[in-house]
């Protein structure tokens, strides 16, 4: 048994034992010990991913463990190693971050249960990644779903969390049902539960493939199935949101590659649908993100955007494969995978920073924070790195991966396959440009409102910097973001082994990466440092500190600043029909034009999809439930007659079948 597999097994067993000890332990639970266990497990996972990169190894659990119809079977290769590495990095980050953060949650949640669930959550995710057959996959898929649902509901006192957990559970149930249906169907076709024996290139497999696709889109928060995500992410504690957004929704990207691309999905309708869903998700997610005033909600919507971008990459890869362009297929796949990793890292960083702001400033409402940059300088720097990466600005990692996706779109447009395909590529480039403009607005708003200017409430007045360990937890993904940005050629050479795993004889994509990001980064840092340190700050005596220009009106208060809502208003006006944006302002007073005594402004954004699409569906089911109530009259005679009728009906059915 190779080292990678041993380490994986050992980590899972170690996590299970830790859970057991944590449950049975009588005294109070020390967060530091649990975090140390988590960190050790994360490091082991990281080593296992590093050593499993060049392997292709399948192993089965020993005798007593058997899942009714199939063995508990695992498989490790470069693709699973990549995702295990992502989970490992996120795990290590949250292990540093958690102890400091959890001190603030002592009264709200049952932290013993919290730790046990976090361990199960990670076990589940690793299990999904290394599952080699459908039954193992489903087992761990359900562990992930249940553990994350319970974690969302950690703070049971709040109605928000209950509602979020309920909606999330509903979404995961639909997703799992579809998956089970599709797996049974594929088992019936192939007679085997192992993923590597499935083949989706046949016409008969279009419907199960579509079912798998929808199931994974639901779990990945892709438009129009994203509704659960903006509820679930903000409700969960920060480390859990980081894991959910950084790793859990990436499970569906992994599964799309493992369950759809590798078995050779080639239905043009499904591939095109994936592209359309990706484009719409990217736009829809970031548009709503810009409107949010809750920092975690904003980040949650931005996750939808990034899932869209990843899906664009994946569908491009499939399109290129369909038209038999192996180089382009490999390029787009590498772009999608790279963006998956990047999004996992910077979203983990941003969610942890949001958690730090939440506990240090006691609010994450953008209307109540402000000027935190001077109180939390470390968090500010790390958050800024995160926003630079999420806006995909050079020289950070987000830019490199987005560049690969742009490049694949461009090359596909130039491939002269058909005019329509080129046109679609041009439109997608245009939409992606719009999306990056919106992302820039969204994250300058977040950074500017939270850290710059003056404080907007007494909450953020008294904020202090979080503990060094919490900062370290955010610094790990931040360093990874910067490192990956300047070492893209190295990453591409590593991703090559995945590309050749997915598409046989994939050509090398590394030569296509013509950017010199190391050079750009170096010259940028060099110039900025010279100018900033020596030119602008060379002589401190030449700098006079003074108050901001106040038009001579006197002291500027915290409320005399731009707010998150006013920043977003300009955009909301343009996209008002889509956002259902309404602004009502009432100015009161005797001479209300010149000397208003009271001003009130109210804005409203409606979730179009929820009110127009999911609302009616929910209403229909409620109506159906009301109708069914007639059957439940509370009379024993009626119930007995139901039983009689059912028996008779079944007997008749049996007779008909026998004939």
């Amino acid at each position, binding site marked *: 048994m190779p080292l990678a597999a041993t380490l994986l097994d050992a980590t899972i067993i170690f996590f299970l034992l830790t859970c057991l000890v944590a449950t049975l332990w009588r005294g109070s639970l020390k967060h530091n010990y649990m975090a140390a266990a988590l960190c050790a497990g994360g490091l082991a996972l990281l080593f296992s991913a590093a050593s499993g990169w060049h392997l292709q190894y399948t192993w089965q659990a020993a005798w007593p463990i058997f899942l009714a119809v199939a063995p508990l079977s695992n498989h490790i290769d470069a693709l699973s190693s990549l995702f295990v590495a992502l989970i490992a990095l996120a795990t290590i980050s949250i292990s540093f971050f958690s102890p400091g953060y959890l001190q603030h949650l002592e009264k709200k949640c049952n932290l013993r249960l919290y730790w046990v669930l976090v361990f199960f959550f990670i076990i589940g995710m690793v299990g999904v990644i290394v599952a080699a057959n459908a039954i193992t996959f489903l087992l761990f898929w359900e562990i992930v779903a249940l553990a994350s649902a319970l974690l969302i509901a950690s703070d049971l006192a709040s109605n928000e969390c209950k509602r979020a957990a309920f909606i999330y559970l509903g979404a995961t149930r639909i997703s799992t049902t579809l998956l089970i249906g599709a797996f049974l169907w594929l088992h019936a076709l192939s007679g085997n539960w192992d993923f590597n024996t499935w083949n989706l290139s046949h016409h008969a497999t279009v419907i199960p493939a579509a079912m798998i696709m929808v199931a994974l889109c639901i779990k990945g928060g892709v438009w129009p199935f994203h509704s659960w995500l903006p509820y679930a992410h903000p409700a969960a504690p920060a480390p859990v949101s980081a894991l959910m957004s950084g790793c859990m929704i990436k499970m569906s990207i992994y599964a799309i590659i493992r369950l759809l691309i590798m078995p050779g999905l080639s239905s043009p309708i499904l591939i095109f649908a994936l592209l359309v869903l990706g484009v719409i998700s990217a736009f829809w997610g970031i548009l709503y993100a810009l409107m949010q005033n809750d920092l975690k909600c904003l980040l949650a919507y931005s996750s939808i955007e990034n899932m869209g971008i990843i899906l664009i990459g994946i569908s491009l890869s499939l399109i290129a494969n369909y038209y038999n362009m192996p180089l382009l297929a490999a390029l787009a796949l590498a772009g999608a995978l790279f963006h998956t990793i990047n999004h996992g890292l910077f979203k983990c960083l941003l969610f942890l920073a949001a958690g730090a702001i939440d506990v240090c400033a006691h609010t994450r409402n953008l209307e109540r924070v402000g000027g935190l940059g001077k109180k939390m300088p470390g968090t500010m720097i790390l958050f800024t790195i995160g926003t630079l990466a999420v806006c995909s600005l050079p020289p950070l990692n987000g830019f490199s991966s987005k560049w690969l996706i742009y490049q694949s779109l461009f090359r596909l447009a130039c491939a002269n396959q058909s005019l329509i395909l080129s046109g679609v590529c041009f439109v997608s480039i245009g939409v992606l440009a719009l999306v990056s403009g919106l992302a820039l607005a969204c994250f300058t708003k977040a950074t500017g409102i939270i850290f710059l200017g003056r404080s907007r409430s007494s909450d953020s007045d008294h904020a202090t910097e979080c503990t060094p360990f919490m900062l370290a937890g955010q610094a790990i993904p931040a360093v990874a973001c910067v490192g990956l940005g300047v070492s893209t050629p190295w990453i591409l050479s590593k991703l090559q082994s995945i590309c050749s795993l997915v598409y046989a004889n994939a050509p090398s994509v590394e030569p296509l990466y013509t950017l010199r990001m190391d050079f750009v980064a170096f010259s940028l840092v060099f110039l900025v440092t010279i100018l900033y340190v020596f030119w*602008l700050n060379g002589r401190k005596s030449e700098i006079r500190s003074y108050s901001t220009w106040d038009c001579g009106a006197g002291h500027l208060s915290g409320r005399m600043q731009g707010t998150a809502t006013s920043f977003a208003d300009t955009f909301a006006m343009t996209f008002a029909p889509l956002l259902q944006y309404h602004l009502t302002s009432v100015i009161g007073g005797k001479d209300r034009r010149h000397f208003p005594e009271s001003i009130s402004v109210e804005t409203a954004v409606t979730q179009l999809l929820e009110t127009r699409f999911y609302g009616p569906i929910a209403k229909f089911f409620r109506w159906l439930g009301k109708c069914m109530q007639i059957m439940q009259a509370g009379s024993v005679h009626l119930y007995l007659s139901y039983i009689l009728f059912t028996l008779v009906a079944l007997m008749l059915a049996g007779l008909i079948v026998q004939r």
Partner: protein
Amino acid sequence: MIFDNILFAACTVLMPPLMIGVIRKTKARLQNRMGARFEQPFHDLLKLFKKHQTISKTTTWIFQLSSAMNISVMLIAACILPWLSFKPHFAGDDLFLLLYLFALLKYSTLLSAFDCGSPFGAMAASREAHVSLLLEPAIFVILVSLGFIAKSTSLGAIFDFSTSCTVYYLPVWLSAAVGLFLCSLAELSRMPVDDPNTHLELTMIHEAMILENSGKNLALIEYAHAIRLTVLYGLCVQCLLHALTFFTHAQHLVLDPTSLTVLSVAGPFAFAVLTALIESTLVKLQWRRVPEFIAYALTMSMFASASALIGGSYASHHL
């Protein structure tokens, strides 16, 4: 070759303030004023470079870093953007890199506007972000259409003069030039979108964002803005010159390098005069009508992309 490099460096340093001078002078003459001399912006910048800075107490390190970032990004962008025909070639001069470098510049400018905690800064930041958001698709699609002709995203390859423009791609170059010019007017906060001469905080976009900057800090930002003006107009000129190669080619008069050099240096100044004309004859649009103006740029970009696609399919059929 060495002469080209020196000329390029000189143009990068000297042309931007001179362009501002030309715009101001032309505007003054159109208003029957004598106006300041062409080289006045140099004196203004030198004066600002010598002055001490006054910085708001509210600000953090972002404020000063932003002006350093502005000028650094613009210098790198000027190196990779082929805004002069004789620009030396740099490896990795990718069009997506360029556009995201501009985004990086915008990111730091927007944050510095927030940093002072002034209501004007935040309002202007919102407007600037909105304008650039609407412009982004137009600029992306125009440059990608040009890249489609060269089948490459390297700016050096796209704006290379080694082949002349064919009839299939003539509309692309022309509409790209017009589209880019409209985009630059909005991007640079020039007249129909923003009036650089008013000093009413409530209506300005660019000026309101840099309201708190002073001394060296302001000089760096002003200089970066002038470079941005020059390179964007230079890009429009290059598009027009490429369209021109079609006509000269038809009469077997291929443009020689010397005339190309002269035209690409003189071209931006012609655009500066055009800007002054526009600013003297047009009025500033109401803020809510700015998207309508940008829609023209977007239409040009769609026209460029459609003609690139159709021209491309014709070209492949006929060859």
